[in-house]
């Protein structure tokens, strides 16, 4: 939204030709007792490094399934998904886990912070996963500060924070390992409108810093923050 045409052009020119995310004829079929259900139906899509993409569509259109694929929480039934040039299907479970930890940051609608940890510890947690030690570099605190959470607030448990504050902490957690991709599943869905726009401003700022942001939303106003909108219906892309 805030990027000028010039900035966008410069970034586009500097983009690598290889997409950061590539879906090639991806289908996801759930085998239910009532019969097979196709959640994603032969989807092909390229998302370049540094893009800000909104995924839209009605309920049951396959948005969440798509996010699960992009977040490699799930694998396609058929087709291929490449992230940073790597075919997800060919990766081991541990490699996928490490990719989730290092390359992908996930922001959920319900924040999904760990209630047993303080806000600071929630943000520090992915650093501990990656470096196998407590953060002594000040990285967690710096990232929290960048999303507007000060030291005093970061000592609180998630239940002691407002929805907006929790989502800021969740964004900080997603960012702390400096991932290339930020997946945001209805990040404003549980927030009031004003707080929602504040969160979107943070996401726009991250995009401006070069992050690839993929956002799932129902709200056209929110989708307007993205530079590209992909619309899904019945598991197919009907607009991009």
């Amino acid at each position, binding site marked *: 939204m805030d990027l000028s045409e010039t900035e966008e052009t410069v970034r586009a020119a500097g983009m690598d030709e290889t997409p950061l995310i590539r879906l090639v004829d991806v289908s996801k079929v759930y085998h239910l007792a009532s019969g097979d259900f196709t959640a994603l139906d032969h989807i092909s899509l390229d998302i370049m490094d540094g893009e800000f993409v909104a995924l839209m569509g009605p309920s049951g259109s396959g948005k969440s399934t798509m996010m699960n694929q992009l977040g490699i929480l799930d694998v396609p039934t058929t087709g291929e998904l490449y992230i940073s040039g790597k075919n997800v299907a060919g990766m081991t479970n541990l490699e996928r886990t490490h990719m989730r930890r290092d390359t992908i940051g996930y922001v959920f609608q319900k924040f999904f912070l*760990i209630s047993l940890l303080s806000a600071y510890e929630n943000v520090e947690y992915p650093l501990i996963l990656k470096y196998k030690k407590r953060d002594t570099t000040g990285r967690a605190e710096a990232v929290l500060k960048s999303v507007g959470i000060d030291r005093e607030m970061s000592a609180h448990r998630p239940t002691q924070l407002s929805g907006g504050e929790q989502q800021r902490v969740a964004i900080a957690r997603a960012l702390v390992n400096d991932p290339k991709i930020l997946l945001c599943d209805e990040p404003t869905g549980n927030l009031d409108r004003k707080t929602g726009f504040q969160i979107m401003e943070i996401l726009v700022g991250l995009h401006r810093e070069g992050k690839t942001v993929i956002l799932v939303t129902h709200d056209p106003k929110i989708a307007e923050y993205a530079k590209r909108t992909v619309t899904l219906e019945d598991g197919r892309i009907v607009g991009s």
Partner: protein
Amino acid sequence: MRDIFFDLSVRSVKLNFLRSLLASIGIVIGVVAISSMGMLGTNMQLQVKDQLSQGANTLVITNDAVRIGFPGSTPSASSSSAGITKTQLLKIKQAAGTGVTVIPLYRTSTEFTLGSVNGRSSVYGIAPNDITSFLTIANGTNIQGVNDALVGSTFATNFNLKLGNRIHIGKENGTESRPTVRIVGILKARGVTSDNVNTDNAIIVSRDWYTDHYGGVDQYNQVNVIVKNIDTLSAVKTAIDAKVNTDPKTPVIRIQDASSRLSSITSTLGTMTTFILAIGGISLLVAATSIFNVMMMSVNERIQEIGILLSIGTERGEVRRMFLYEALILGILGGGVGGLCSLVIGYSVVSAMIGTTAYFFLPESIVYIPGGMIIGMIVCIISGLYPAWRASNMDPIDALRSE
């Protein structure tokens, strides 16, 4: 610096403190049960071993067809049968060599009358000069006259005997007059010994009196060989065996040393200890079920949290570790408290059941406390294995959807 997964486990236990505490109480009970039972059995073994070691320098030699007097029979000269013969006794003495005391003795069981009281007792026939070589007279004198007798301390206490009292030996039949002995001494208590001479509840008469009334001259029920140096016991045993049992296929005498008797008794007590330990182990099994239940509850309550952990890059092994830590914390809690309780309860049980705590703090006894604690912790970890495995193998998408 503490592991974040350990921190999470500690916080989870604190969050559900009461539930965790109740589950740990099961482990406390289990640890106390196996530690106390183990210590009780071991203390019993140690005490018996100690008592038996009194006769540890003794070889007990018997004939396989040992003559036994007929219970309740009136003494007569007709009850002799195969025992250790005079020739065999001579060979034993020759083989045993010098520095060894050889004590042939007779033994039977008989009824007796003391005043108006009838009873039954063992009767030993031992030469007076042999008596003092392995028995201690606590009160009175040794046998001097032909009708003199000694009695064991328990016998004297039970029948309120005094020196000079007379005992009629044999069953009262109203027609025959029965032989009578006069108590001249009371022996010091020996307890359970390994030389197969249990005098505490017995009457000891001279060999001559015995053979006069029971017969069987030079047909000894038992010969005890006492060595001065216990290290020579095995060599003496071999020498006697070679001298008397000339045909190994048909041995005429059986030689038992204290070690074989000791190992036989301690082995029996060991089996008993194992049995009571197994009973204690049942309570740990019950505790394991309780821990398993609590761990499953913890996993079920934290499904969404597991989903979050997995979706942001936690390895499955790390999730597994987190839940195993939780089980271990319950084990440490239960094992620690159980260990302390075992010290107090075990001490009380041993004191009440055995009557002495002299062996309680010996390593072989006290080792049951750390042993019980470790077993308690292992039981907790084993109980946590399946819940931890289940948590780590959850589908993160399903876990995140759970409410």
